[in-house]
């Protein structure tokens, strides 16, 4: 029943053109050439001319390649059998398992009716104090991790994936290094989480077009799980690669670029993916965490900039830590009033004092004399960075709050913190300076003098090494 077309009229970039009739927009086709068989999708119709984007790339396609239209748009299978499996961006198995072709659903479906959404209300626990305490992740939130290349963002993602209390984890890898892919697979497997995960992986060596499909296919599967009452966490890394793939295709198609070569619809394209995050009125939810690497650490670059306007906050990953300034979870107010009564106060007080610490560091570097208060702040900042900010710290929210109180008690008098007196009464640790009070057998406290003298920023590298050491 399918007609096969033999004459390719034009090949430019990854887009080929054939003359065909009765083809519908966004329909899939199979292109058979000496290189093998690849899927392709219709991206423009112009009279008889049909423009097809070839998923595997156009290299090796001859003008006599065979094109067979399949009569349906891009689909993916959805069933429980997907769990524990690894696929490519176009849905072919990447592990050695069998292809799954039951219960096909369209990808990139319509958006959710806002009237069917609800205000998010559940916290997602990650065990990372900088997230749980200071910028709580909320179920159905969409949040990017802004990072510079070289930061351990994939490690952070993997940790959140393992610790978050969700039913299904879906990983969409775009332009991943092959060893990063193996890292994710092995980490999930070791922790026994692979059986509740589905991986869609496009590695840097795979054809660009497949990179474009990864978020859509991952989110289509996530949506189906969510409709079946599952709480789904979708991890996307790295969305900048996705945007670059969009740019590449747009330029091949001779579209007018808008900002630094990116197509004018970059915002809409990103939003269409991120907005899949949802808490359904009467079913499950989708939470999206996506890495966006910032080229040149520039947050005004079109990709992080557009992302920031779409998402509900952002985490900044810098020097191996989640920065307290700039990082923001826009939805945290919805949940942190119900965790523990001291949560908000600890969050605000500790950040304000940390800001004071940063100011003191500046003063110190300018050679001003340190007052007694400055010395307290210096001690505090150092403890805060070591015992809460460090990504190696892995404790539940309540323990992190307790630890916050202990740090405050070690450094300040109760009145100096400016906290409401009823909370101080209830939570301020009784014993004066109980450095060895027995809980969590944490790191030994560092000498105060050392803390006060530590140089800031000038030697990032040595600092990082110290952190690594303390993680082990």
């Amino acid at each position, binding site marked *: 029943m399918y007609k096969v077309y033999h004459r390719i009229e034009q090949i430019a970039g990854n887009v080929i053109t054939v003359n065909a009739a009765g083809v519908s927009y966004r329909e899939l086709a199979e292109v058979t050439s000496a290189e093998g068989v690849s899927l392709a999708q219709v991206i423009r119709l112009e009279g008889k001319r049909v423009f097809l984007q070839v998923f595997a790339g156009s290299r090796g396609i001859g003008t006599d390649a065979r094109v067979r239209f399949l009569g349906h748009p891009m689909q993916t299978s959805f069933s429980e059998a997907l769990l524990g499996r690894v696929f490519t961006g176009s849905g072919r198995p990447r592990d050695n398992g069998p292809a799954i072709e039951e219960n096909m659903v369209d990808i990139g479906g319509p958006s959710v*009716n806002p009237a069917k959404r609800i*205000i998010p209300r559940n916290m997602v626990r990650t065990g990372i104090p900088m997230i749980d305490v200071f910028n709580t992740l909320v179920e159905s939130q969409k949040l990017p991790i802004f990072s510079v290349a070289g930061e351990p963002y994939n490690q952070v993602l993997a940790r959140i994936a393992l610790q978050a209390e969700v039913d299904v984890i879906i990983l969409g890898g775009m332009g991943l290094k092959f060893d990063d892919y193996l890292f994710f697979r092995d980490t999930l497997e070791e922790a026994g989480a692979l059986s509740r995960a589905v991986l869609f992986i496009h590695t840097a060596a795979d054809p660009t077009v497949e990179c474009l499909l990864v978020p859509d296919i991952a989110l289509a599967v996530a949506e189906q799980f969510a409709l079946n009452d599952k709480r789904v966490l979708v991890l996307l890394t790295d969305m900048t690669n996705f945007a670059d793939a969009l740019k590449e295709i747009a330029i091949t198609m001779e579209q*007018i670029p808008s900002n630094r070569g990116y197509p*004018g619809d970059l915002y*809409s394209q990103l939003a269409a993916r*991120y907005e899949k995050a949802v808490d359904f009125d009467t*079913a499950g939810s989708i939470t999206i965490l996506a890495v966006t690497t910032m080229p040149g650490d520039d947050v005004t*670059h079109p990709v992080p*900039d557009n992302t*920031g306007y779409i998402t509900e906050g952002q985490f900044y990953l810098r020097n191996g830590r989640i920065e307290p300034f700039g990082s923001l979870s826009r939805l945290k107010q919805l949940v942190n009033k119900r965790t523990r009564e001291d949560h908000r106060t600890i969050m605000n007080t500790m950040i304000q004092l940390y800001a004071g610490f940063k100011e003191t560091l500046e003063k110190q570097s300018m050679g001003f004399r340190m007052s007694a208060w400055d010395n307290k702040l210096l001690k505090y900042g150092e403890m805060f960075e070591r015992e809460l900010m460090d990504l190696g710290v892995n404790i539940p929210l309540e323990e992190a709050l307790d630890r916050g109180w202990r740090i405050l008690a070690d450094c300040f008098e109760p009145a100096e913190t400016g906290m409401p007196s009823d909370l101080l009464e209830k939570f301020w640790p009784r014993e004066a300076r109980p450095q060895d009070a027995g809980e969590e057998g944490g790191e030994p406290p560092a000498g105060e003098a050392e803390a006060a003298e530590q140089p800031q920023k000038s030697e990032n590298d040595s600092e990082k090494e110290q952190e690594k050491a303390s993680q082990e």
Partner: protein
Amino acid sequence: MAKNVGRIVGVNGNLLTVEFDQPVIQNEVAYAVTGKVKLKSEVIRIRGRYAEMQVFEDTTGLKVGDPVEFSGELLSVELGPGLLAQIYDGLQNPLPELAERLGFFLQRGNYLPALDRSKKWSFTPLVEKGAVVTAGEALGKVPESIFDHYIMVPFSFPGRYTVESVAPPGDYTVEHEIAVLKDEHGHEHKVSMLQRWPVKRPIRAYAERLRPSEPLVTKIRIIDTLFPVARGGTYCIPGPFGAGKTVLQQITSRHAEIDIVVIAACGERAGEVVETLREFPELTDPRTGRSLMERTLIICNTSSMPVAAREASVYTAVTVAEYYRQMGRDVLLLADSTSRWAQALREVSGRLEEIPGEEAFPAYLESVIAAFYERGGVVRLKNGEHGSVTIGGTVSPAGGNFDEPVTQSTLKVVGAFHGLSRERSDARRYPAIHPLESWSKYTGVADPELVERARRVLRRGNEVYQMMKVVGEEGTPLEDFLVHLKAEYLDAVYLQQDAFDEVDGATSAERQQYVFRKIVKILETNMTFKDRDAARSFFHGLTQTTKDWNRAPMESEDFKQIEQKIEKMVAEVTSYV
């Protein structure tokens, strides 16, 4: 009448090229048919026998040769009782009803009537047989939420009409005939409560346009006192992401002293619309004692909904706002965000392969933005009453840089500019409106003379602060240091406002006048201190006390007591030289 049907010859994203034989109209609505689904679209360019059309839906599955049915009508909205408290998409489909029918997702090709056809409204005629009326004059009224909703002669009726008959008082549906009008040539026209109006054409059925002069009280101090908005004026809020644009608009939509608020959520997050739509029905409007939702209307086309409908959504919103203005109401239209709308224009322009302007925005961007804001204004209606549409639009400049085309085109046409700054939002100084960069051409609630004096303190304070960064505190004379402290004080206790505090969150015009006069007086008091630390700690204390004052209800005993305490504190440091 023979249907005018064309054929698709090209598909590129949401842009169709359609071949036609019979006449078509620019901006005419047409439906592309694929299988059983009809997709709404609009003609945006005509070249020879080919019309280029933008489709308001996803175009997957369309084929070359598929039929396109032209409707002969421009893109229009339905106007009539029942609009308030509704939630529409950009094409005026009621979202709750769509959800009821289709479930979680917005399936394409489903269009529902905007107004409930079965609901009955209690009609009271206001004219008698033989009366002479023109477009926009009331024929009768029905009660809608807290207002009388006037049923008017359709705005599209030119010339004068004689009332042939009018329905007696009673309950009617929106499509029921309520009057028959005879035009000057003796033709009869039937009129119902429902009328249609093309969204891209301003409604002009009024006597004259006036200059906006009365302030619109938003209860946000920095706006009402320093950068006021007038009823019928226009203003814009540009700011980088995370600076609080949307929160500012949400607060405004809650507290503004206005009859009706139309919220156009244009290309922004769905989550924000959900907050409004789930919370507003629970909140009470202090002015009427009724739910806030009853004076609110939401047009939402969030970022993942089809782009072409995003462009339509701001026009739908402004048309509905104009409709209520015609009844003598004061309407506030909040558009969040106009940048997304401009981007929608850019996407279409790109597909049409037009020669791009700056940052690939189309060259006509400026005139389109100007025409939109010009639809705001105060008018004197034919019956002598006044009505107004105030337009407030947020702008989301790329990279937070105000030099980009959308911000610049908007600044040229608005009457007030509330620029949000990253520094202020990082320092948690909310609302993050920059007190030195923003401006307004309107007159606010406070005495302009006092405002000028306060502004001078802010400017001087900033100069001192800049200097202090170089020479350090030690190098700053105590006198200058005091100016800095005073500016900081004004900022902390008056410009900043805690949106989450019930009292501080909304300051009435009366209270603003009272408090502002007090604070300016403090700023202009000569003070003596022994050194900088003494001055700093005095101002810390004063700030703390004044903040408490802000949190005390104006009529309360606390308010008076704290006021006396402040006076006493100031008197202790005043120098009478």
